């Protein structure tokens, strides 16, 4: 497209965008203004109906649980797409970094870096589990905790080397986490149907508000989402790392 045609297209499109965007923005409620009646109703009802203290968890895993199910599958298909896209192609080969200079050994990381990696990765695992299991009580939940768990593996890589981190994350295990987590969500949804209520109804005992085990299916769904997200993000990181560290174009 020539410069003149692009400018003409822009001149036509910019006012149209400005008008529609302006009309849309004019219809928005004022900033930080009134709380909608739906929000007020949910913060009133959710703690009593679902025995939770974090209303956002009750919305995303119970009242709007079906939306989260679809988001689960968006992540699953995104990770599957990345895996297909980043596989070794026919003119590429997997080659460990040390194969380039077999007579030279890679110096191990200094003890200080290693100690920091051990300390940080164990703290990250702990924080991840804490975030997943307390989803119904405090901000956080399966998605956030899952990413924190996967990030523990990055720290292992930073503190050691490629071969060690591959031992920590065997691909079949990560794929199993991803798949089992996604299926677990559907399975917990089917529990509702088995109990004679609707799909994804909260049919498990609700427990006492404020306890670690409370909220019925909400902590269970957080757990399976956490497993899926941890597996998915670990696959994502290891696919990108493979591309950078070991996959290279075959010499002709």
């Amino acid at each position: 497209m020539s410069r003149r045609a692009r400018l003409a297209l822009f001149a036509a499109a910019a006012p149209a965008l400005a008008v529609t965007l302006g009309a849309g923005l004019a219809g928005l409620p004022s900033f930080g203004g009134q709380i909608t009646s739906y929000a007020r109703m949910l913060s009133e009802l959710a703690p009593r109906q679902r025995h939770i203290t974090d209303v956002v968890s009750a919305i995303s895993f119970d009242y709007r649980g079906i939306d989260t199910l679809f988001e689960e599958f968006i992540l699953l298909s995104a990770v599957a797409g990345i895996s297909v896209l980043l596989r070794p192609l026919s003119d590429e080969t997997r080659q460990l970094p040390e194969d380039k200079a077999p007579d030279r050994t890679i110096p191990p990381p200094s003890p200080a870096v290693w100690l920091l990696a051990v300390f940080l990765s164990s703290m990250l695992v702990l924080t991840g589990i804490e975030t997943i299991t307390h989803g119904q009580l405090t901000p956080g939940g399966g998605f956030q905790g899952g990413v924190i768990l996967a990030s523990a593996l990055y720290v292992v890589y930073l503190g050691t080397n490629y071969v060690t981190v591959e031992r920590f994350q065997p691909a079949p295990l990560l794929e199993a986490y991803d798949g089992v987590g996604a299926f677990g969500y559907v399975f917990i949804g089917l529990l509702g149907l088995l109990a004679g209520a609707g799909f994804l109804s909260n049919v498990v005992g609700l427990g006492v508000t404020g306890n670690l085990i409370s909220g019925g299916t909400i902590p269970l769904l957080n757990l399976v989402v956490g497993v899926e997200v941890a597996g998915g993000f670990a696959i994502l990181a290891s696919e990108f790392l493979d591309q950078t560290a070991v996959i290279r174009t075959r010499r002709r």
Partner: protein
Amino acid sequence: MSEAVIAVALVWVAASGTAVVLTRDPLRQAFVAGFFGLALAFLYLSLQAGDVALSQIVVGAIALPLIVLLSLAKVRKGRE
């Protein structure tokens, strides 16, 4: 008081967002984008959206910079 915090957060978001656009080198942009993510998380927190702030931190500070940095490493290695 809370208005002041929100105002600081909004200014921080605007400034760091502009900085992301004005940074031309992709490697530096990855770091600046990380700070932009932090500013967004602070804004969400100041608006009392703790869950969204946590999601923003894990995506903006862990997932996005990692993918950008590893992609840059791959592209630069291909050029050598």
